[in-house]
């Protein structure tokens, strides 16, 4: 088992039996520490995971005893038996990471904490690493995580798969939390390379292993992989942002694209379409340029229309407007976008993709002065350095063109 897999599985199991993530983390940390002390001298046990689990369980039991175990925790004799720990088949250790993910994304936990909790518990990233991913100081993130874990224990949020009536809504929250890990990849790319690579890739893969029959989990995994596959082409040799249509497809990661297609095949076989499958299908069409040489815009337009119908959001609307512009021309795209912004109201004003798309469309229509103003407002909302520079460059060239034309118009 890979180290991260192993950590998440052990922590999920310990947390579920203790209904207490913090206590489980402490016990597991003790077990790792003891492993570091004893393995070099006595050799690595035949099954390191079973060894760690046994030691951590003993720690948890000590912890309950010393805390006078005011509440009698039912210990499952069979499961907790210490005998034959070394013979234990690692794959027989039950995988309770789905329960852990459901707890992390429980409605009683504030939404902003869902993704950080998952990265911290399921993948074992430290508060500092998670904080860096979210551009939050380590101490702030640590406080947030501790508070959430305390809440899980105090309110007794169960480590259990909810009944069928509640499961769909709860799975949606889990999918969205994993999606949240994917979104930070783009939102916070700073000048330095990311310290926590591929956390979304990993979480999405774990989720498909936990719920192999859930088409949306496969759709989400495919979406994350397809987007990640293009990461190597997103910056050119000078570190400048390269928009998707200008990217060199030969730089895309074919291994990731291949894996994404496997997930999509599994998802489609379930015959139940959903938002993440559609988003992945859209990314797959973009990636198909690698083989076809051109982009199939009409298909993209259809997919975007369906997506905006079944899961309307500001993001899906802006994307639909951009694709409409590709197929039906910039005027049609701008009309779609402005209608969307009109309906969305005030909060849409600070949505960077809407501003950037509007600037591009005005620019294409030759309405350069309006485009310059629109680029300015988009630049104000862009955090990514490379993308900022790219927008700045477009803005300056639009500005030049408008100045050139200005005297001509005056004549």
């Amino acid at each position, binding site marked *: 088992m890979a180290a991260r897999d192993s950590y998440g599985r052990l922590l999920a199991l310990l947390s579920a039996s203790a209904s207490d993530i913090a206590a489980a983390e402490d016990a597991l940390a003790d077990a790792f520490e003891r492993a570091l002390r004893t393995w070099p001298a006595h050799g690595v046990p035949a099954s390191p995971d079973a060894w760690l689990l046994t030691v951590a369980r003993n720690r948890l039991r000590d912890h309950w005893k010393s805390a006078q175990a*005011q*509440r009698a925790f039912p210990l499952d004799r069979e499961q907790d038996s210490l005998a034959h720990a070394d013979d234990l088949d690692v794959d027989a250790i039950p995988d309770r990471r789905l329960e852990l993910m459901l707890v992390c994304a*429980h*409605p*009683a936990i504030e939404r902003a904490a869902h993704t950080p909790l998952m990265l911290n518990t399921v993948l074992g990233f430290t508060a500092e690493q998670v904080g860096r991913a979210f551009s939050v100081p380590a101490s702030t993130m640590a406080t947030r995580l501790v508070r959430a874990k305390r809440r899980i224990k*105090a*309110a*007794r*949020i*169960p480590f*259990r798969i*909810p009944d069928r009536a*509640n499961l769909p809504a709860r799975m949606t929250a889990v999918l969205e939390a994993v999606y949240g890990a994917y979104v930070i990849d783009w939102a916070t790319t700073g000048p330095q390379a990311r310290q926590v690579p591929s956390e979304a890739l990993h979480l999405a893969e774990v989720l498909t292993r936990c719920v192999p029959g859930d088409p949306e989990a496969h759709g989400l995994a495919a979406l994350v992989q397809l987007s990640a596959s293009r990461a190597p082409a997103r910056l050119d040799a000078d570190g400048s942002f390269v928009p998707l249509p200008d990217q060199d497809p030969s730089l895309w990661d074919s291994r990731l694209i291949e894996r994404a297609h496997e997930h999509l095949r599994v998802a489609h076989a379930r015959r139940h379409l959903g938002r993440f499958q559609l988003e992945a299908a859209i990314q797959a069409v973009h990636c198909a340029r690698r083989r076809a040489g051109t982009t199939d815009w009409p298909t993209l337009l259809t997919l975007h229309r369906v997506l905006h119908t079944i899961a309307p959001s500001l993001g899906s609307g802006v994307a639909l407007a951009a694709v409409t512009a590709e197929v039906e021309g910039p005027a049609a795209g701008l009309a779609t976008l402005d209608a969307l912004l009109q309906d969305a109201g005030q909060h849409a004003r600070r949505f960077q993709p809407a501003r950037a798309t509007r600037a591009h469309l005005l620019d294409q229509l030759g309405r350069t002065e309006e485009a310059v103003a629109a680029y300015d407002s988009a630049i104000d909302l862009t955090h990514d350095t490379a993308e900022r520079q790219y927008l700045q460059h477009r803005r300056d060239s639009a500005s030049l063109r408008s100045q050139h034309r200005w005297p001509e118009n005056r004549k």
Partner: protein
Amino acid sequence: MRYVLLMHYREPAEGEISEEAIAEAMEAFGAYGRALAEAGVLLSGDVLQPAAATTTVTSREGVLRVQDGPFAETKEALAGVFVLDVPDLDAAIGWAEKCPGAQWGVIEVRPTATALVKGRWTR
């Protein structure tokens, strides 16, 4: 584990709610109470009189103060309390969902830290 469901909602003015609506609500609370009892999770349930009937008492400033009115004047007032014994938060949320008060107000679900059972504090 013991959870308290605290019902909060705006207190209606005198005569604001029709006789039929009141009868309907009483019917709903009746059914809810029977469901709680049948599931074996009900420890107690009280629907409170309006805040006009409430009195607050404190000695925290050194002298006894008895005042009329609730602790905090809010738009939504504490209106009722159910004490349940259920395994976990999901079960408690499930019962809060079914509470008639959730139709027109807000139910706060709070685990208890310690409780008096037969005159003794337990955990």
